[in-house]
């Protein structure tokens, strides 16, 4: 039987195997937490921590250097991902996970806690959410200059 850390690691490895992360590793492990690092959107290095006792996963600095207004938009976007108006296969089920956003020094972090013990679902929900932040939230026109400045990309290289 797989332990909870095994489930999280295996689910994340699935994404690495699918080319979603271009690089992936477990960088620190203790009884209570596991830290992972992956190279993902905009070639950024993302840090993810699994809190074993709390059954929660936290992405630090999903979006760095944000403004307060952007954070408000971000929270709205996250809430919309849980809307019953979305098709079931694209909706994050609030019965399964609780999502908490926070902002410190401009950096937005996202924490997902498995409510019903379904950790695979929690990992998939979190990965799907951050993926949509980069695929949808950042692309609607308001954050074009933010991406140029924050991710330090050349305008000709921003896709």
């Amino acid at each position, binding site marked *: 039987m797989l332990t909870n850390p095994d489930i999280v690691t295996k689910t994340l490895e699935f994404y690495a195997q699918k080319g979603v992360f271009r690089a992936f590793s477990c960088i620190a492990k203790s009884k209570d937490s596991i830290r992972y690092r992956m190279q993902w959107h905009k070639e950024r290095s993302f840090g993810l921590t699994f809190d074993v006792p709390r059954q929660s996963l936290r992405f630090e600095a999903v979006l760095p250097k944000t403004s307060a207004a952007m954070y408000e938009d971000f929270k709205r976007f996250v809430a919309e991902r849980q809307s019953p108006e979305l098709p079931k296969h694209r909706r994050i089920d609030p019965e399964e996970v609780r999502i908490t956003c926070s902002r410190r020094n401009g950096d937005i972090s996202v924490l997902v806690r498995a409510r019903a013990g379904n950790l695979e679902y929690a990992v998939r929900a979190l990965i799907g959410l951050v993926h949509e932040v980069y695929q949808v939230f950042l*692309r609607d026109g308001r954050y074009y200059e933010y991406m140029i400045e924050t991710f330090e990309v050349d305008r000709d290289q921003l896709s």
Partner: protein
Amino acid sequence: MSESKSIQSPEKEKAPSRRSFFKPLAAGAAAAAAYQTKLNAAPPIPSITIPKDLPTSLNETPKVSSFEGRGMTGAEIFAKLCKEEDLAAMFCCPGNYTVINAIAAAGVPAYGGRSEGSMCAAADGFSRVTGEVTACSGTEGPGFTNMIMNIGAAHSARTPLLVLASNMNIAGDDREAFIQTGYQQPTTTGMKKYGKRLTEPNRVWEYGAYAFRNLKTGIPGPVHLDFPGEVARARFTDAAKLTDFYTKDKYRTESRAVPNRKEVEQAMDMINKAERPLIVAGQGVFQRKAWEQLKIAAEKNEFAVVTSGPTRGHFPDDHRLSAAMAHDALRSADLIVFIGQYCMPSPNEYNFAAGVKAIRVHPVPEDIGRNWPVELGIVGDEKAFLDMLANEIPAKKRDAWVSELAASRAKTEKVNLDHYALGLKHSAATNHVHPAVMAKEVHDLLYAGDIDPKQTVTGCGGWTTGIFMGRWLRANRPGQGVVCGYQYGAIGPDMAMMVGASAAVQRGVGPQAAYKGAPSLVVTSDAGIAYSLFEFDTAAKYKIPLVAVVYNNNSWGMWPAAVGSPRSMHMYLFQENLRYDKMAEGLGARGEYVQTPEELRAALKRSYQIAARENVSTLINVQALKDFTNGAAYPPGIALPVEPGVGAFAH
């Protein structure tokens, strides 16, 4: 011919007229009168006319060369091979004289334009809307190097483009004899499928076969041959002197790799088990003319389809199973099947769910698994695969998936309309046309009025222009849309590329047959038009009817890169209010100048009607402001396109 409007802003009314400008120059009434007399005495400025030699030359009967008598030159032998291979068209500037004259004489449709680079783009455009092999040609050295940007664009687009150039004489190699010496083949390294400097006159046919083997089989790409004088002008009176002088059925094959039956069955099983399967119909589906098979299979099994590649329309945007506008639904797909995706993105570059299952069908094995890990890789011809799918895939109804596609398309339409509403507001506030408004007006002309929505071939390029216009252009039948900046991101070939595409429409080649003679339309920017504006002369010369909409925002689209760098801004700006419409008039086309949505609507309609009726091209100068890309002041700013689908240009 000209019907240019003169829209006068209050500032312009204060500007000096010709009369008031000269007034202070005259010392008095006598001097002014003397000057007027002089003006009156000046001979009238002659009109722009098409030389009478032009129709005569175009109506000449093709010449069949023979080994008898004076025999055939190396150029004529090569031209014979091009003709036998049905080379669809050649676009060139004078230079490489022996070869271009021989190809034209052999009966290959030939066009002469104003710069080799533009002619290269035109050949690419002709190929993009037909799938056929085309050629471009230029003189050694400068003419050849002028083509480089557009050879690069053709390489990124996997265009079967034959690049020809003369290259001095072998006898002068390394001596810098006379002028224009250059090593051509190293220059095209990294942007061709095959290349060769021909050095043995008796192998000219053999290397022609090399060229077409590469152009017509496998994954297409540019082939570059450079002809030294010893080869082009060599004379042959005896076919026995030529190596490998045999017909195309001997030197290449039409045979294609048929996909393994078991693997196809596995793919069909995966498609069947998926709830929301999506086919990405890549360029290979167009190149192999497999659109009917694709449509049959899609309608039978109700899977969604989105096209990708430098050409759009091999699955209609207006089809109920099209995901080209269904941006949200792309992320719902639970199985992706890439068919003939020649330029492969990485997983996060397409708007799919993270980790979605993928199958890839590709004509050659080397590329399968590159960039995008697959559950199943199938080596095989796209048409053969889709034939099997059309014949064997079980019929299935997917009502929920079809409904989701429709809802998603409606949502994207709403976003477009929201941008349009913002654009209208900005246009009214500034008396300049916002790009979202320009895009909607072009859309309404082509797809929401009296014109058959399948009729007009369109192309689009430029940064701001491409981003706003791309999401409003539709491709409802094969070869209807050209993504001018596809993958390479070249700014500027748009106009020339669409001259080539429009030439194909005029001739009714391949998928253009049903719309033979219809006008085409290109939307480009003030930055872009500078690279190929002169091809209005070519369009006028050959009566190619093209409506060019030029978004004039007085700057390079990337001007915000200078914000915060005070000593840089001058490098990003042009003179304001340049009159590209006037420049077009000077080249024998019509010019229109617009500043409001209403003026644009009228100008578009007028220009299209004249293009259809009289084969006359028009440039519509759409006066805008660079600041419209500032999202804070003028929302929505730059909303990056969703890939794949309408507006996609990277893959």
